[in-house]
Every structure is written in structure tokens, then in C-alpha cells.
């Protein structure tokens, strides 16, 4: 197969355009890239114009459709910066406010947290553990309220970040108007290095407020302290103090 020596017509046109605009040095792949862009742009415009023509119930696409298509596309993809008078006006207003004073001794000077990227980008998953009906007839499906002590089969309570429960209720619980008392027994064995091993009775319940309001559930749980890593860190001091053994 003899390789075609001549450059295709489109590419020749593109080379000429580049020359006219004064660009003399460029990598050879620039032509391909420009041609791709041209093809994509033109087909987008023509497709849009076809849409507008059908919308206006015309059988043929005419210049007005093309103009409209170009205009819309310019406003959408190829926006240009705001005009100068607008910028001058905005700048004038902004520059009138005096520079804010700097508070001393504030540590890292960052904007309020919601404007920073310092929040965690993960959310800890709740453990869907069934509560065995040792407490009685109530089967409360998937209660993940506060720091519910799950009954792990494996003694993994020692490690902080594994079992962690959030305050978010996983599924809406369709218990209404009834009053439940759920008592979750303390897990036997297992646990922990810290003094918080002996689980207290009602302890550190983080109850989702929404749950309380509508459902009238009173839950007493026994919390084992190291259920969520963040929590345990936060509450370390309190845990130490608050514990009363059973």
C-alpha cells in the first residue's frame, strides 16, 4: 500500500488558517486537534440549528437558525469575561469597604469551615446488626440510634474505627404512637482496654431528634464507649468520669 503523500483538503485549509493568523511554529498534532475541534463545533451548531428549525416548523434550516444556534452556544460554552464597565462598577463597590482588621492569635487563618475543603469526605456507615429479642417481644428493625451497642460476634470492639454508628437513621421506622422500651443487654466479654469496659446502663445515648419527636421511643442503651472513633476521642474525658459500673 502506498501511503498517501498528499495532505487531505481539510488539513490544508487548517494549515492555511494557521499561517494567516501568524502561527508559524506548531507541533504537527495541532492540526489534528484543530480539525477535531472544528468538526465537533460545526456539527453541534448544525444539530442545534436543525432542532430550532423543526421547532419553528420549517422544513429547511436557514441562516436565522444557524445564527440562533451560534448565539446560544456562545452564551453557553464560550462565555467571555464580563465587560469593563460592569467590572469597574463592581470593583468600585468592593473597594469602598475598608480592609478588615486582623484578629491576633487565631491559629491558622482560614475561612469558615463551610468554605474550606477540610471536612472529611467520608461518612461512617452504620452497622446493621439485628438486636436479638432477649429484651422481649419487640423487634426493632435496624435501629441505629446514637451509639447503640451492637452485639458483635467477634470481639472487635477494641478497634476504634470499625464499628461506628452514626446518628442518622437508616430506614424510616414505622413505629408510631407506641411507646417502646428497648433494653439492649450489655455485651458479655470482649471489650476494651480502657476503663470503660464495664458498660453502664443508660449511657451516652445519642438519639436522633427526629426519631424522638414523632415516634415516642425511649431507648435506653448501653453504650460501649469505643463505638465510633470520633466520638470516643471527643468523649474520652467524659467517659472516664461518667462511668459507673453496673
Amino acid at each position: 500500500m502506498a501511503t498517501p503523500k498528499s495532505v487531505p483538503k481539510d488539513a490544508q485549509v487548517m494549515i492555511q488558517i494557521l499561517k494567516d493568523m501568524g502561527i508559524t511554529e506548531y507541533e504537527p498534532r495541532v492540526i489534528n486537534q484543530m480539525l477535531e475541534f472544528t468538526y465537533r463545533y460545526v456539527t453541534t451548531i448544525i444539530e442545534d440549528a436543525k432542532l430550532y428549525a423543526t421547532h419553528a416548523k420549517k422544513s429547511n434550516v436557514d441562516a436565522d437558525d444557524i445564527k440562533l444556534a451560534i448565539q446560544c452556544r456562545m452564551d453557553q460554552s464560550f462565555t467571555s469575561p464580563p465587560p469593563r464597565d460592569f467590572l469597574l462598577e463592581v470593583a468600585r463597590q468592593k473597594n469602598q469597604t475598608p480592609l478588615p482588621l486582623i484578629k491576633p492569635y487565631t491559629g491558622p487563618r482560614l475561612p469558615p469551615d463551610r468554605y474550606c475543603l477540610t471536612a472529611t469526605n467520608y461518612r461512617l456507615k452504620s452497622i446493621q446488626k439485628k438486636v436479638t429479642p432477649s429484651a422481649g417481644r419487640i423487634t426493632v428493625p435496624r435501629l441505629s440510634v446514637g451509639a447503640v451497642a451492637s452485639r458483635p460476634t467477634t470481639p472487635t470492639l477494641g478497634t476504634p474505627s470499625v464499628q461506628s454508628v452514626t446518628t442518622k437513621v437508616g430506614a424510616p421506622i414505622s413505629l408510631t404512637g407506641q411507646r417502646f422500651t428497648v433494653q439492649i443487654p450489655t455485651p458479655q466479654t470482649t471489650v476494651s482496654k480502657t476503663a470503660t469496659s464495664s458498660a453502664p446502663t443508660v449511657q451516652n445515648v445519642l438519639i436522633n431528634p427526629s426519631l424522638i419527636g414523632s415516634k415516642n421511643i425511649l431507648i435506653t442503651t448501653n453504650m460501649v464507649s469505643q463505638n465510633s472513633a470520633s466520638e470516643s476521642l471527643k468523649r474520652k474525658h467524659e467517659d472516664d468520669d461518667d462511668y459507673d459500673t453496673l
Partner: protein
Amino acid sequence: MAAVQGGQADAEEIKIKDIKTESPGDGSGNNNANDGSKLSVSPGITNSGGSNKPSAGATEEQQTLLAVLQFLRKNNLTESVEILRREAGLSEETEERKGLESSGSGSVAGAGNVDAEAGDSNSLLNRVSVSSSAIPASAAPTQSKAVAGEDQPDVNVVLSAYSQQGDPTLYQVYYSSLKRFIESVLDCHRAELSQLFYPLFVHMYLELVYNNHENEAKAFFEKFSGDQECYYEDDLRVLSGMTKKEHMRGNETLLDFRTSKFVLRISRDSYQLLKRHLQERQNNQIWNIIQEHLYIDIFDGMPRSKSQIDAMSGSLAGEAKREANKAKVFYGLLKEPEIEVPLDDEDEEAENEEGKPKKKKPKKDSMGSKSKKQDPNAPIQNRIPLPELKDSDKLDKIMYMKEATKRIRLGSDTLPSICFYSFLNAYQGLTAVDFTDDSSLIAGGFADSTVRVWSVTPKKLRKVKSASELSLIDKESDDVLERIMDEKTASESKILYGHSGPVYGISFSPDRNYLLSSSEDGTVRLWSLQTFTCLVGYKGHNYPVWDTQFSPYGYYFVSGGHDRVARLWATDHYQPLRMFSGHLADITCTRFHPNSNYVATGSSDRTIRLWDVLNGNCVRIFTGHKGPIHALAFSPNGKFLASGATDGRVLLWDIGHGLMIGELKGHTDTIYSLKFSRDGEILASGSMDNTVRLWDAMKAFDDLETDDFTAATGHIHLPENSQELLLGSYMTKSSPVIHLHFTRRNLLLAAGAYNP
């Protein structure tokens, strides 16, 4: 209705005027009888009323009504058109007559909308064509539908400044006649008047394009573009690609060029000549254009020579007006705080008497002003709020002063050693580099949107341990600051991911805790160098941000980009504190003054502007470069500014007087980096031509004379001493020099990507 009409026969005139001033379509139907016969009377009265005293107000309202009419007609709201016309008391004849009056010639088409347009453009045309009454009617129909109908009011306000000023075919004639006149003038005036060619050419060309005279525009361009100065070549090339009105819409720079006035500085004698010549001619279209688009700053004195003019011209906005450079600039340095250097170190060095530290005075910083009095050229300490020094900052300062004592004094006979850091395998992706002030870290911004930080010293980069591990360490120990660092992940370099576009600007904070990077994605990101994670993304520019820099005292930073504004931010505000707007094209380089009170911005419109941080005003405009400016550097004493551009020249500016004081020719390609040595004796410049050149800054600043005349008129006499000032030129193998940095001991570090 009829009764009402009859009862107001006398007051009809006034009533009808009132009708005009009411907004159309209101319940003004009381007087506006649906009585056609009455209406036929009213136009006459209207017209005569139009020539009375309150005619100005009446015609304004008339035009508003006509504009609304035209708008309704455009949108095919024919019924509304009828109703409005009836109620407002307008008729076909009215509009036609109005159109006739204004356009002055008889060939106005009978179609209503043409005349309405002519009526709309009344104000514009009347303002402009003072003397000529014979505006050809071709003006009217080609008046664009720029009013009210289209959806971009801002742009159209701008574009409508281009009302047709004359017959398109005559433009060539006007321009040629002006050219002939200027060529016939005395030599001394010719250079000054030749400044007119370029702005006139561009404005006339754009007017032709705007009014859809494509062929005439092309012919005009071909005939006269070759006459322009060579340094306008790039602009002309852009213009040659614009042949239709739609092309103009997307180009913000040219739109700004339209609305801003091109400034020319001409001596009074030359100006008188020009004025006399233009005003005695019939078709002084050129005079109109000059009045509308150019600003002629007249000075008394000798006309300038061609070389003087060439030195200062080249920017997109002409030169700077004299008042633009008259504001007082506090270019002095802020007083350094007095810090006591610990004396035990002193004793080691000095080897003097031992043990009586009380006697020996603690060494003050050598940079502080010797006198207690305030330097009149320095800003007061709290002109802008600056962060106070923390203990770690004080330690840094002490280190700095110790290093300063070991600094080599450079001069024309002691040149610095240059150490070049080549980035290998960057594949032309290296777009920005920065060094910390103590030269211990290098950061590189790349086109693949990553930022990489390297350690220059043998000490590796460590980040702070995670929260869980931090809870385990002993907080009371002395070396807690080392214990919080994680040894396991220590490495020579760290990569920071986060941007979604090439990183064009990088800046370390002076306390080495933060790194800023600005990118094509329009955001500026703040990274922590203790955790090597991104802390904040500052969104404000929605277009590529070409450069960013921290203030020398930290806390503030400035960024400039494609949207033609530079913004001043503080790290703890998510919105900018100041917006510096005024450039006509993108801002390519932003630098803080050493006293942190001023920001210099260099732009693609070939000017450099100096902005006051306190109130956002532009206090200096420096023109003279012939290409976009890519490098700026303030001298350490704050008095001078050096700038480098794509034209390969380094220009030196005196900030206090606002004048150009030196020109350093030698580079053959774009200059991307400029740096003064620590004491300001040497200026180093790095360029795309793979060289680093050293210039004698001390000498360049010594021989300047700024007498009153120079300061007043801005005439400069640049000595041709580039060769004497060049101290050395050093080639790299094939790496363009992107960044330069003098260490605290005056060793020159350079950085660039190896580009085989």
C-alpha cells in the same frame, strides 16, 4: 370621549406634550381619542412643539416611544404597536418626519421601522455630527438593531458607540488625506502626529466592520495596515481575522478598546496644526472620531522625537495621561520590628570578651532604618492591617538576620554563582515554579494539574500524623513538634492533587506553612505544607488565573487572570477584599511591593499598573512594552520596578516619579523571570532563549537624573547603555529559564524544564 376632546381644544398642545411624556400604553386614553382626525392635527403640533424650549425633553421621550415602538414591531406585536401608536399620538407621518429632520437627506425609506431606528439614533448622531448636515441616508438603514431588541444590553451599549459617521467608501479618502497632511508637515511635528495613525486606523476599521460594510473594511485594511508601526503587528493580525460584526462580540479586549479612550501625548504646537487642518475641511469625520475615541493629552514644550515616542508607546491604550501618574506612592519599606538576636550566638562569632552580654548591645536587624524618624516615602505601619509576628516568625527573622550577615556582597566584579535546577521528564508540562525564601523547598506547577513539592535540602518532607496517631503521643515532651511528624511517609517530594486544569501560578507563604496555586480552572487553592492537603479553594475568577503571589508578610495574596481583574484576598475570607479593574486585556503577572501596600500587575495589553491595596486605586500606569508582560520584580529598596515582556526587553521604572529610567536590551525571546539580588545590586533575568543574564542594577539606578522637566512632561532620555550594564550571559543547555531566586546569601538559583 368626544366631549372630553372638545373641551380641551385650547390646551390641546400642552396635553399632547403631556401625552408624549407619559409612558405609552398607560391609561392615557382620555385624550388620545380614537379619533383619527384629531390625530392628524397633532403631528403638526408635535413637530412644532418639538422645536420649542422643552423640545429636548420632548424629543427624548419621543425617541423612547419610537424605540419601544420599534421593539414591539420587531416582536410582531402588531396590535400593541397600533394601540401604542394611537395612544401616544404618533403616526406614520410623525415618525417619517422625525426621521427626515434628523437624517437630513431625503432618501429615507418609507418603512416605519427604518425611521424609527433613525429616530433612535438621533441622539447619537446629533451628538457627533456637529457640522455636517448631509449625512447620507445610507446611515439610517444600516443603523443596527442594537437597541432594545437584542439580549446583551451591555455589549450593545458599547457597540452602539459606533454610529455610522459617514459614507463607508469615503473612509479611505479621509485616511489618505490625513496621511498626506501628516507627511507634509514639519519633521519635528511629524513624529508626534504619526501617533494618530494606529488608533484612527483601528477605530475606522472597526466602525466599518460594525456597520456591516465588510468589503469596504477589507479594502481599507489591505490598503493601510502595512503603514502601521511594526510593534502593532499582533493586534493587526487579530483585526484581520475580524470581518463581521459577530466576530467583535466575543472579543472582550477589542470591546474595551472601543470604549476606552486611546491616550496620545502631543505637544501644543503639533496639536494646533492638526486641529487647524481638520477643522477647515468639510468632512471632518476624522475630527469626530478623534473627539470621540481619542484623548489627546497636550503638553507645552518641545515636540518629542521618534525614538522618545517609540520608547513609550506600544500599549493597547496609548500612553498614560499625566494625571494618572501623579498620585503619591509610598514606596519606602516598612520598619522592621526590632528583634533581639540571642547573645550566645553573638559571642561565638565575635570572640570578644566573654561573659558580659549585658555590655554588648544586641544586634539589631541590619535592614532596619537607622533613624527613628518615619521615612517620608514609607507608608505608616498600620496603613493596611498586617498580621502580627508570631513566635515562629520571630525565630524565622532571627535566622534571616544570621544568614544576612553571611551574605556575599555582589557587584559588577563579584558576580553570583548560579545553580540551575532542571526539571527532567516534564515534557513541556512545567508551567510554574517557586522557591521558599530560605530556599529549602521548590514547588512546581504542571500542565497535568498537579503541584509537586520537593525538598532541596537533605531533610525530607514530612507531614503531620493522622488524628488517631496524634492522640497517642506525649504532648508534654520538648520535641513535640518533631513527634507530630510522621516518619513513615517521609519522602523527597510530595504530589498535591486537586486542580482540574494546568497550574499557572505558584507561591509559597513567607512562613512556609502554606502554598498557593492558581490554575486554568479558575480557582486559587491554598495547600497546607504541614499536612500536604488542600485547605481552601478560592473561587472568584471564572476564567484561567495566570498568576498569584503571597504578600511578603503573609495573610494577603493577589491573583490575576483572564477576566482582566486582579483580586486581593486574605486567607481567611472566601471572597476577595479588593478588585483591581482597569486593564484592557488579561493580567499575566502580579507582584506585591516589599511593603505590601501596593500591587503591580502586568498585562497582555502591554501596560503595567500599580494599585494601592488600601483603596483599590490605580496609582501608576507604565507603558512602553511592545508585548505582553510576563515578569515583574520590585527592587529590595522599593523604589524601582523592573519588567520583562515577550519583546525581550527589560524596562526599569522609577515608581516615585512614574517614569521609565532604563531599558536593557539583550534577550532575544520572552523574558519569564526577573529577580533583584538581596541588596539590589544585580538584576538577573531569565528567558525563553535559554539564557540567564545579569545586569548591573546599581549603575542603572545611579545615573538617573530626574529633574523637574522630565518629571513634568514625562520626556525621557534613555541612555543606550545596555551593553555596559550587561555583566554576564549564561546559557543553559536547552532549558528555558522559568524562575529565578536569590538565596539569603546571594547565591542565584534558577529553575526550568529540560526541553531537548
